[in-house]
């Protein structure tokens, strides 16, 4: 039996234009369609696969405004059992450290957690630090950037894959925290029964005060804030190679100079 918490985040759809708000340089949530982050769908899938093999319960934990309820609902429709939703205006502008603290407290409200699964990074902030910070705060072993996960008895084994270090095999005793990368699995679509059942599943709503964090969170207390931002520069014209019989060689030389071959 493995009780699993999956961290989920509602993010602006990567297909829509993403902006920061003019006033305080926080994410402009109204500017884009909001969706459950795709990497979180993979985290949920992995939790469901582990649950199906070992039994247990999957709890979704989310920090975000009220409309993040849609993302939670999707997670529940995929098959998660219940959810904890921390929603509070006071959290507006929370940075990575604050978010991790809130998550640590929120995860603390779930009983008997064996495994926490997160995506390796959200597609909006892309800090990629929350899983590690949260593991530190909770005193749990962290097995990040997993492309394969196996839970057997009281241990979890992970194939960790990063661009710089290649593949590392990690193992830890439960309870533990893992983060998954996009190679971990293909997430399932919610079934019709899953969709119909999602509404009846319990979602516990909590505020910062409920978690004892009143007055410690939000933009005013953030350790890091965004001072300014600029749109990304337009794409520059590429390098043009005219084929005078040696086109193939030139292309190969270019690729070699970029260390691609």
């Amino acid at each position, binding site marked *: 039996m493995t009780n699993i918490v999956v961290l989920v985040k509602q993010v602006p759809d990567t297909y829509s234009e993403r902006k920061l708000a003019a006033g305080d340089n926080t994410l402009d949530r109204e500017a884009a369609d909001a969706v459950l982050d795709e990497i979180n769908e993979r985290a949920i899938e992995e939790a469901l696969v582990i649950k199906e093999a070992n039994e247990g319960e999957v709890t979704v934990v989310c920090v975000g405004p009220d409309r993040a309820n849609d993302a939670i609902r*999707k997670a529940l*429709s995929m098959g998660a059992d219940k959810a904890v939703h921390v929603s509070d205006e006071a959290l507006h502008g929370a940075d990575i450290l604050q978010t991790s603290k809130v998550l640590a407290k929120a995860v603390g409200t779930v009983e008997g957690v064996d495994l926490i699964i997160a995506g390796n990074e959200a597609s909006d902030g892309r800090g990629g630090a929350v899983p590690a910070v949260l593991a530190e705060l909770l005193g749990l072993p962290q097995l990040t950037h997993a492309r394969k996960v196996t839970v057997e008895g009281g241990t979890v084994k992970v194939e960790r894959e990063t661009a710089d270090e290649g593949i590392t095999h990690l193992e830890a005793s439960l309870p533990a925290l893992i983060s998954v990368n996009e190679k971990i699995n293909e997430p399932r*679509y919610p079934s*019709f*029964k899953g*969709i*119909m059942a999602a*509404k009846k599943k319990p979602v516990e709503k909590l505020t910062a005060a409920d978690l004892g964090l009143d007055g410690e969170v939000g933009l005013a207390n953030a350790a890091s804030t965004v001072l300014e931002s600029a749109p990304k520069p337009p794409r520059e014209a590429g390098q043009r190679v005219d084929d005078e019989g040696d086109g193939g060689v030139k292309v190969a030389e270019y690729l070699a100079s970029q260390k691609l071959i």
Partner: protein
Amino acid sequence: MSFVESDERKALRAAVFELATGYGHQYIARKARAGEHADELWAEAGKLGYLGVNLPEQYGGGGGGMAELATVLEELGAGGCPLLMMVVSPAICGTIINRFGTEEQRSRWLPGLADASTIMAFAITEPDAGSNSHRITTTARRDGDDWVLSGQKVFISGVDWADAVLVVSRTADAKTGKLKPALFIVPTDVPGFEYRPIEMDLVSVDRQFQVFLDEVRLPAEALVGSEDAALAQLFAGLNPERIMASAFALGIARYALDKAVTYANQRQVWGTAIGAHQGVSHPLAQLKIEIELAKLMTQKAAYLYDMGDDFGAGEAANMAKYAAAEASARTVDQAVQVHGGNGLASEYGLGTLIAASRVGRIAPVSREMILNFVAQNSLGLPKSY
């Protein structure tokens, strides 16, 4: 009925659309050109419960109604993957067996139809009985406890993919000797049952067939429901057919409109997106309106049907089918026009839909027969035939 869809309906739309776009129209086009069925998509959608949302939960269905089933088909089409057999297998056959079948027939067939592991075709049209179903000549006669079926059917969809066919035939009334309709479930592997493909200029994963029934011997339990209630049974299956035909057409229309709008936004001529020109934008805006109106009428028809109002649903379903078929034919035509030559290039995935978008004007009931229906029943005008 609310104009605002429930969270569950929206979630169903989103999930089915995502599944369909994951496969994409190129998947359907490739399968159709190779003479194959959409097995993978059909099986996956079936496993997720999308193809049996209308059937009762006790038989493995979703416990929803025609509104949900039409939503599924519309979203599959909008994602580029219209599945014609949804109109037939869960909607017509599933409905008739669920409403009129015996408990044995329900237990035997509905679980398979609900998860789509079983496919059932529907055979009503005959060479000399198209719109006029009263002229059906396929006949069933009693032989001991058995039934023996003989006759011929035409334009029957997906027979090669089906496990069984629900065949509309006639039996001789014991008292008067007059012929009356009766519905039989005919497995496609029984002796005397043969089918032959009809060459069609349609790019579709669901092919059309001629069916020949030569002294097909069936056990007594092949007769669906009561021998005497068949006309009511038949008409009970026709509203779902029209509602689903509307959803099929709507999906194609939405897919084509989306393609046209995307192209009109991207394609630059003389330094401006072509969509900025009213010659391009106004026809697309008109089609958007027509699609939304057709969708509303489809939803009304499905709502009335699900409320048990067969009669009220009949008028709405006919009007919805008319409107959706017009919208789909006109939208695909306009989408091709917006694309210019690219509209007929395989890469753009629109040319494949030209014939399919015309199907709705012809089947399951022609535009002209719908106008007859509305003229006579809604307006009270005299009948010409």
